[in-house]
């Protein structure tokens, strides 16, 4: 990806992330989130992670954000009058977040990172799936158990209270 294009996409991503945090209505937050997730999918594609780029769109934008929007609609929330914590806490949080991002960025720019040439098919479905079904077979199966538990848990918790 050319540097100019990256800067444009990065700026839009940060804008979307800001929308998530500062928007008064949770619906706008969810829309900011979906924009950010789409742009991160584009960045995945530019990093030769084709499978993950499309999974990102399907799983996050297609499932998780829709879940968020469903819950927001079910709760029928009004736009909040007071969306933020106490001003002191907000200032401390902003300062802390800034310091954290600065610290990581400082460490990162001092580390030389090359972009080596890639083998054919890097990030495509077949090589990633090969890795998934050989080296990472056990975690993969455990993931299916985790998802099953989460489904049952969400149904049990989400049911109308009996007692």
């Amino acid at each position, binding site marked *: *990806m*050319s*540097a*100019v*294009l*990256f800067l444009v996409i990065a700026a839009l991503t*940060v804008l979307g*992330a*800001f929308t*998530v*945090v500062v*928007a008064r209505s*949770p619906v706008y*937050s969810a829309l900011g*989130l979906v924009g950010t997730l789409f742009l*991160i999918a584009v*960045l995945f594609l*530019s*990093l*030769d*992670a084709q*499978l*993950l780029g499309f*999974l990102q769109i399907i*799983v*996050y934008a297609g499932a*998780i954000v829709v*879940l*968020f929007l469903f*819950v927001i609609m079910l709760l029928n*929330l009004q736009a*909040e009058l007071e*969306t933020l*914590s106490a001003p002191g806490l*907000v200032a401390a*949080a*902003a300062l*802390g*977040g800034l310091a*954290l991002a600065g610290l*990581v*960025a400082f460490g990162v*720019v001092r580390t030389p*990172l*090359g*972009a*080596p040439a890639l*083998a054919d098919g*890097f990030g495509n479905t077949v*090589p*990633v799936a090969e*890795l998934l079904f050989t*080296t990472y077979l056990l975690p993969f199966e455990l*993931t299916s158990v985790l998802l099953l538990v*989460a*489904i049952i*848990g*969400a149904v049990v*918790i*989400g049911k109308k209270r009996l007692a």
Partner: protein
Amino acid sequence: MTAPAPLAWYLVLSAVLFGIGVVGVLARRNLIVVFMAIELMLNAVNLTFVTFARARPSMDGHVIVFFVMAVAAAEAAVGLAIILQLFRARETVNADEVTTLRW
């Protein structure tokens, strides 16, 4: 065609996104928005994983991101169910009004 963006830029971007997510978790009181900020942080970390996978180059990072996505989906389903029940019991999703585990 200009020069390609260096990989370090991706890492800086993910650090910024993670910082914004941290601020969202600390500063917002709406539990749903706090949840979204957590998703933002997870995505920032995923971007780091994919960047390093590109730099090494090795696809193990892609597999880890796959697992993170699965765990995030499970976490969102259960967490939103809890928020839904909380709203039924308390008529609020404000974190400041939910300070006791028992009622």
